[in-house]
């Protein structure tokens, strides 16, 4: 035993109450440390201190956001579709009588800045395990990315690394990447955002629980060995601000991913679920064993006993607190009936995957962890998982908001001649946020599984779930930090409305929401105010739209020094399509089809891409949101997809009508003859970013039916012209022409060129 005398046991802690402990270095506040002592009735051991510091970190405990996130639960519309919601690893919604879908978006922002490839890769790996933990087979991934200025030298380090990481992990684990978004803004220079979404499908009967219930049941650790990687990831990296000096090297805090092991985890877990060999399951992500043990024990009905020396290790000399804190990837925790444990181990072995019994479920109400026979942890599990600190932090509207609101982009100088407007169309198409993103999306597998019906660059990804019935889903992921900076409530609702509309544009009916809330430091009252406004905007919006928030993630501390990012709520909306064969694609249909605009164009340029690209301007108030209108629009599009009365459709968002036309022309290879409505100001009509608008392409003979479907719903529709394969690019009658070559020269190849490739 002599080699273990140094271990800080419960007995030692009892005997040395005054021992100085590094609670502050671990990110705990003094009153939090005192509360731990109260809970335990003694000082915590080193292992316990590590566990509390992790579980009570911002990342794990949601201590600053909890009081606001409650709104989601309070305002969520009741729907029989919701099978599992907030608090689970991921929300689960019913698709039909047999199938359910689970999806979630999560951030991996800080690690992706420190070590772009592994940071982004393990972000994808982590969200995939959340999906597995619900009992589902992951079937697709998607990502929402934000970087600093495209020509900043560090962007050339971060972006290719992030894309490589997402691609490497997703491609090797065998999941199609079905779309997403990429934006650039100097506010993300030191704090890029990497938000990854995964979606999975399961028979409704396979829904899994994270409960460690049933005294005597075996606790099995499945997957990779545990190493020193990622120690302090959530408490140090994700729950604190980067210092301005940038001198501290946090690289060892970033985990290293192994998608091959993750692929085996997927196959083994699904086999075990199907054979009904598992009572409870939890993934190991941020906070590793600490989180998985305390959450499963807290969710169950008793306690748990773990013998930590049984955990297979990758590194020699790891102390108990290291093993508990390690964020080594590709691990899952299983709760198994002892009679079935051998079969679980055998099935894992068949796939070449490690599986080790490390403990048992008890009825003591305590989580007890022994290390070589010495007790290093003895705590009530709920005190770690559920009873962390809750802060109602001060809120204050940013001082500059009033000034910003009156600095409207509508007053900026505009192009006036046809030639100036023509050049603006091309300049916008070539700008980093609007240009073609193939350089990124071509590094991702999009077709593995053979069920991808629509992928990038469509408004939403569409995946078939069932080959017999054709039932499928559509997902879109959207955010707009610029709008949210001007007004976080409206900005969040604009993102929600856009994701909702993007799903609807494919013909799908939106049914559920997952969100990733990226903000600066919660200790800054201005940031906290932005957060509260954005959460309220989402909760109100979802209540109005009748679709529940099913889960998501909060990422605070996205700031370097005093400079916070724009508040950036990213919203994922999931929709269902009864038959994916009737999805509405992007494009221009056939020659002679009518191009029309549904919705109203107002003079709304504040926060727009035009204001940013041409004037470097951010001010004014964002476009209006009309959720009633969005619901009518979604109803219309779903109807027209079922009756197959639309050849194509495309959401209007950043860059307005001009950009929508550029994308449709470039994607389809067709031309468009456009005549703007009488009296319309060409500049406003082309570049305004009024929300609630969709460009539709109506097959010949269907114009009257579509018009009457719009009118019966009170939706304004304006014919704009015709699709024509013989027109070279865009012909804007009475104004200008742009050839397809000119469009492609502006729109394509920009990302690689700007990164020096």
């Amino acid at each position: 035993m002599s080699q273990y005398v140094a271990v800080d046991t419960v007995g030692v802690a009892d005997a040395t109450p005054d021992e100085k402990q590094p609670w502050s270095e671990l990110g705990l506040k003094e009153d939090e440390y005192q509360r731990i002592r109260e809970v335990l009735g003694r000082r915590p051991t080193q292992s316990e201190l590590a566990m509390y510091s992790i579980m009570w970190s911002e990342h794990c405990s949601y201590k600053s956001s909890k009081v606001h996130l409650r709104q989601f639960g309070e305002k969520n519309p009741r729907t029989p579709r919701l099978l599992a919601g907030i608090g689970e690893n991921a929300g689960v919604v019913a698709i039909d009588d047999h199938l359910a879908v689970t999806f979630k978006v999560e951030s991996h922002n800080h690690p992706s800045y420190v070590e772009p490839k592994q940071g982004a890769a393990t972000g994808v790996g982590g969200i995939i395990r959340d999906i597995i933990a619900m009992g589902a087979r992951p079937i697709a991934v998607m990502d929402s990315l934000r970087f600093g200025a495209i020509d900043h030298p560090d962007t050339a380090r971060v972006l290719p690394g992030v894309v490589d990481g997402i691609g490497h992990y997703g491609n090797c684990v065998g999941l199609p990447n079905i779309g997403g978004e990429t934006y650039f803004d100097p506010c993300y220079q030191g704090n890029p955002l990497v938000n990854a979404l995964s979606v999975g499908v399961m028979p409704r009967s396979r829904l899994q629980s994270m409960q460690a219930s049933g005294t005597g049941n075996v606790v099995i650790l499945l997957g990779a060995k545990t190493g020193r990687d990622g120690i302090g990831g959530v408490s140090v990296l994700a729950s604190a601000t980067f210092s301005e000096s940038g001198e501290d090297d946090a690289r060892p805090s970033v985990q290293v991913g192994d998608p091959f092991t993750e692929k085996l985890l997927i196959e083994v877990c699904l086999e075990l679920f199907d054979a009904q060999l598992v009572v409870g399951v939890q993934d190991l992500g941020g906070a590793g064993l600490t989180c998985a043990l305390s959450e499963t024990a807290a969710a169950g009905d008793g306690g748990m006993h773990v013998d930590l020396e049984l955990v297979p290790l990758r590194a020699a000399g790891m102390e108990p607190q290291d093993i508990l804190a390690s964020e080594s990837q590709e691990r899952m925790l299983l709760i198994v009936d002892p009679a079935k444990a051998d079969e679980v181990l055998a099935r894992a072995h068949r796939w070449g995957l490690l599986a080790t019994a490390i403990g048992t479920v008890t009825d003591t109400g305590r989580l007890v962890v022994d290390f070589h026979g010495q007790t290093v942890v003895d705590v009530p599990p709920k005190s770690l998982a559920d009873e962390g600190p809750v802060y109602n932090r001060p809120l204050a509207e940013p001082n500059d908001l009033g000034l910003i609101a009156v600095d409207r982009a509508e007053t900026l100088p505009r192009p006036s001649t046809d030639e100036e407007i023509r050049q603006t169309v091309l300049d916008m198409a070539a700008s980093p946020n609007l240009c073609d993103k193939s350089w990124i999306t071509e590094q991702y597998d999009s077709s593995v599984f053979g069920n991808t019906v629509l992928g990038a660059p469509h408004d939403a990804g569409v995946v078939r779930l069932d080959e017999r019935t054709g039932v499928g889903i559509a997902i879109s992921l959207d955010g707009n930090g610029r709008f949210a900076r001007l007004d976080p409530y409206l900005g969040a609702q604009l993102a929600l409305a856009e994701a909702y509309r993007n799903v609807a544009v494919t013909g799908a009916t939106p049914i559920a929401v997952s969100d990733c809330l990226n903000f600066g430091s919660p200790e800054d009252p201005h940031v906290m105010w932005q957060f509260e406004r954005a959460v309220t905007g989402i909760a109100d919006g979802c209540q109005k739209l009748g679709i529940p928030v099913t889960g998501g993630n909060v990422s605070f501390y996205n700031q370097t020094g005093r400079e916070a990012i724009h508040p950036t709520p990213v919203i994922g909306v999931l929709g269902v399509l009864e038959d994916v064969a009737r999805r509405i694609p992007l494009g221009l249909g056939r020659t002679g089809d009518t191009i029309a605009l549904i919705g109203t164009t107002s003079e709304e340029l504040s926060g727009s891409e035009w204001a940013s690209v041409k004037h470097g301007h951010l001010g004014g108030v964002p476009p209006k949101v009309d959720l009633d209108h969005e619901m009518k629009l979604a109803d219309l599009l779903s109807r027209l997809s079922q009756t197959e009365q639309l050849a194509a459709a495309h959401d209007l968002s950043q860059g307005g009508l001009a950009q929508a036309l550029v994308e449709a022309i470039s994607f389809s290879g067709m031309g468009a003859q456009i005549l703007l409505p009488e009296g319309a100001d060409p500049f406003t009509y082309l570049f305004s970013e009024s929300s609630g608008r969709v460009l539709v392409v109506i097959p010949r003979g269907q114009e009257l039916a579509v018009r009457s479907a719009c009118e019966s719903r009170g939706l304004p529709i304006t014919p704009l012209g015709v699709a024509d394969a013989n027109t070279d690019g865009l012909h804007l009658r009475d104004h200008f022409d742009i050839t397809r070559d000119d469009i492609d020269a502006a729109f394509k190849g920009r990302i690689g060129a700007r990164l020096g490739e």
Partner: protein
Amino acid sequence: MSARVGIVTFPGSLDDRDAARAVYLAGGEPVALWHDDAQIHGVDAVFLPGGFSYGDALRCGAIARFSQVMDTVKAAAAQGMPVLGVCNGFQVLCESHLLPGALVRNAHLRYRNRPARLRVETTRTAWTNAFAPEAEIVLPAKHGEGRYVADEATLDALEQSGRVVFRYLDNPNGSMRDIAGVANEAGNVVGLMPHPEHAVEALTGPSTDGLGVVASVLAHLSEGARR
């Protein structure tokens, strides 16, 4: 009775289900084979799917070569059984010396996913006989290590004996002589980087040209049965 096409699952295989769908849609019967099982369960042909067998440890396909099932597949191939390797499956066939040459890192050093236009250079293989001579087809190509290389003498021999099976029309990876797929001397073993199994339905693929690859082997097998 429809022909039985065995599809091998190695740890890390990703396109095994998709290969099974392609076989099924073309009218064959897919049969699952397991890397650690030397039995191939009476199948009439074998399809080695894409993916990252054994995590691409050492080299793509290098470990799969030593699997139980590959011993049996090699023996069966020598007896004339049709064997197809796609993407990682092609890499396995090269590592197993069932096909000449090797697949190395793309010349541009990145994984790239783009539909590839190909010309079917010979219809005298078990896996291409249903195509029209010199047919131009479109299949998704998506890989980081798909650049076909071999020494000049081997390349010359392949060309002269009509064993270059598919050629890229817009070479996506720097493959020597634009080679996308090759065959063994007997024409029963074929490997290619682009994915026929991801071009079997208009709804999900860039074309349905991939069906021709499976249709070819089914025709080849039924012709063999008639003889």
